[in-house]
């Protein structure tokens, strides 16, 4: 008898010590969907987005949950894979919305998948945060969709103005994948070069699984271009193009106006071939918040961080803050309005607000600082600091 009660005491004590002290009663659960690409091409981006969301959620959970409208919730992230395919995304969205009954979805990675799931999410009032670069993702008819990352449309003009002027570039050649992202970016980037006073003298499209670019590069080089633009290409492809261009003796500038992926490009191309390349950088490594995030990310997940990840960490945190301000997790209309009204949010990336009224008809596009960097010894070195107005 005595033994039993001692045991009970010991067990009780063990439970009391192991449980977080703040949890007095059972927390409710707040489900957040992550509809991202986890297999096939695009999986690096998807993993970066998912893990950013998990990291943001775990911060709240470790502190005992997120408090919204007097209730405390544990955040549960439900991750589904869309394999970068529209049909798979529709199935996963149906499941998230109707079966798991989530009100918030982080995703999708691709443009086609977001366009394919919007009929469901907008109809049911589910807030989505997508990476998809298509300009059609944001519109006044789609009030529940937000984009927490910069796209080429935002960064192209200021960056290209700066590069064209500082490097004295007159003619540019470009290679884009023959898919929805490539098409969109080709349009944006060409217009920006024209406006900056340079001529886009050769644009090439290729199938996404192509690995040999020597013929296309030969064609572009025969036009005698000063620079090659690689925005819109997957990190692997961009890396291969950089390597092959340098291999066949291209000496002009190589520019990547959007898509933070410098580490992967250097991985594939090698530091030597990538030397001197101008890249878009979303992060300023001299910022403490950025360094802290990278360190924490790499310690938590034990692999390197994808460049889009911090955007979705900040995005998820802004979403959680919006819920707290709206005082509800159920009424997504109120949360959406609270999210819209967040201004000058202090995130990992710096000061964040919403923009895009002019371009998309709705201010659901993140406005974040960004940078032009040059690759030195395989690392980014920031050469200009930009906002949507311009670079210096």
């Amino acid at each position, binding site marked *: 008898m005595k033994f039993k009660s001692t045991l009970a005491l010991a067990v009780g004590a063990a439970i009391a010590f192991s449980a977080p002290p703040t949890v007095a009663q059972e927390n409710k659960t707040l489900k957040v969907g992550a509809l991202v690409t986890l297999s096939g091409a695009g999986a690096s981006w998807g993993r970066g987005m998912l893990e950013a969301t998990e990291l943001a959620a775990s911060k709240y959970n470790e502190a005992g949950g997120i408090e919204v409208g007097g209730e405390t919730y544990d955040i549960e992230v439900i991750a589904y894979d869309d394999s970068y395919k529209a049909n798979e995304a529709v199935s996963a969205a149906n499941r998230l919305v109707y079966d798991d009954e989530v009100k918030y979805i982080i995703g999708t990675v691709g443009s086609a998948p977001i366009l394919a799931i919007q009929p469901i999410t907008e109809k049911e009032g589910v807030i989505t945060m997508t990476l998809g670069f298509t300009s059609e993702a944001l519109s006044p008819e789609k009030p529940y969709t937000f984009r927490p990352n910069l796209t080429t449309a935002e960064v192209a003009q200021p960056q290209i103005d700066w590069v064209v002027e500082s490097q004295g570039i007159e003619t540019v050649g470009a290679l884009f994948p023959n898919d929805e992202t490539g098409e969109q970016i080709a349009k944006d980037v060409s217009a920006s070069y024209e406006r900056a006073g340079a001529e886009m003298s050769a644009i090439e499209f290729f199938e996404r699984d192509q690995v040999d670019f020597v013929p296309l590069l030969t064609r572009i080089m025969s036009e005698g271009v000063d620079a090659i633009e690689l925005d819109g290409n997957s990190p692997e492809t961009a890396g291969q193009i950089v390597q092959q261009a340098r*291999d066949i003796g291209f000496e002009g500038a190589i520019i990547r106006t959007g898509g933070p992926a410098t580490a992967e490009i250097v991985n594939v191309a090698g530091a030597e071939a990538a030397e001197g390349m101008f890249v878009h950088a979303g992060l300023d490594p001299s910022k403490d918040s950025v360094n802290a995030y990278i360190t924490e990310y790499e310690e938590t997940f034990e692999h390197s961080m994808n460049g889009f990840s911090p955007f979705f960490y900040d995005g998820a945190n802004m979403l959680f803050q919006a819920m707290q301000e709206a005082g509800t997790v159920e009424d997504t209309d109120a949360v959406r309005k609270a999210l819209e009204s967040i201004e000058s949010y202090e995130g990992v990336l710096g000061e964040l607000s919403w923009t895009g009224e002019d371009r998309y008809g709705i201010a659901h596009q993140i406005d974040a600082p960004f940078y032009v960097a040059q690759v030195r010894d395989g690392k980014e070195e920031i050469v200009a600091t930009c906002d949507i107005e311009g670079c210096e």
Partner: protein
Amino acid sequence: MSFLIIQSLVNGVILGLLYLLMAIGFTLVFGIMRVVNFAHGEFYMLGAFAAYFAFAVAGLPYPVAVAGAFGGAIVLGAIIERVVFRPFRGDELSGMIASIGLALILQNLALIAFGPDPLSMPSLVSGAYNWGGIILPKSRVVVILGSMVILAIFYYFLMHTRTGRALRALVQDREIAAAYGVRVELMYPLGLALGAALAAMAGAFMAPLFGVSPFVGGTPLLKAFIVVILGGLGSIPGAVIASMLLGLIESTTSTFFGASTADIVVFALVIAVLLVRPSGLLGHKEA
């Protein structure tokens, strides 16, 4: 303009040789086993990973890395023949469907084990030879010289050894080969093992050129498909000619008309050849 023509022809020949290396194992496996091996690209991918771990991680010399990929694939290929393909000997369609299953398994196991990110494969050499304006990237020259050596050894093995002759006999006619005492029981695993090993070696050689990730197998499979359709299923001389043809068409069409046109031209040609000469340019007449 004439400079551009010469350069694009040179590019085409180089590309053709790379494609030949990608395709040769595929055509061998079909010749011996009558299996259209959809898992061919995954052996290429495994070879690239093997080279990455041996060369970039463990710091072994590059030839050792390639040899390691080759040896590993021989063993894996022979095991897979026994476990997966054995029940389908003589049943072309079932064997092909099984290879689709095998490809799914191998690619996704690699994805689980190695993650989706491309790995950093250092290049062996950089820069280019410049002969009067005609440019030859050194990295490609190295791959081509290396693969020439391998293909020469392979050719010697096939033409001048007992086992090689037995394999060739099997490609030509299995019943006669069996009647002359070729040990079919041994030749089937050997055929798949060699095919897998040639693919893995191609992957190991081309890792510095085309990268290392679980998804690198797609392109070699597609190119091997096209080469083998054009050249004739199972025909090794056909594969040589078709690789060159494919390299030259891709190179010249993309240089003068653009890459999308090149893809459409290639597929249209494939369909035309299949319709007019289903056995390929140099295949045996049988279809």
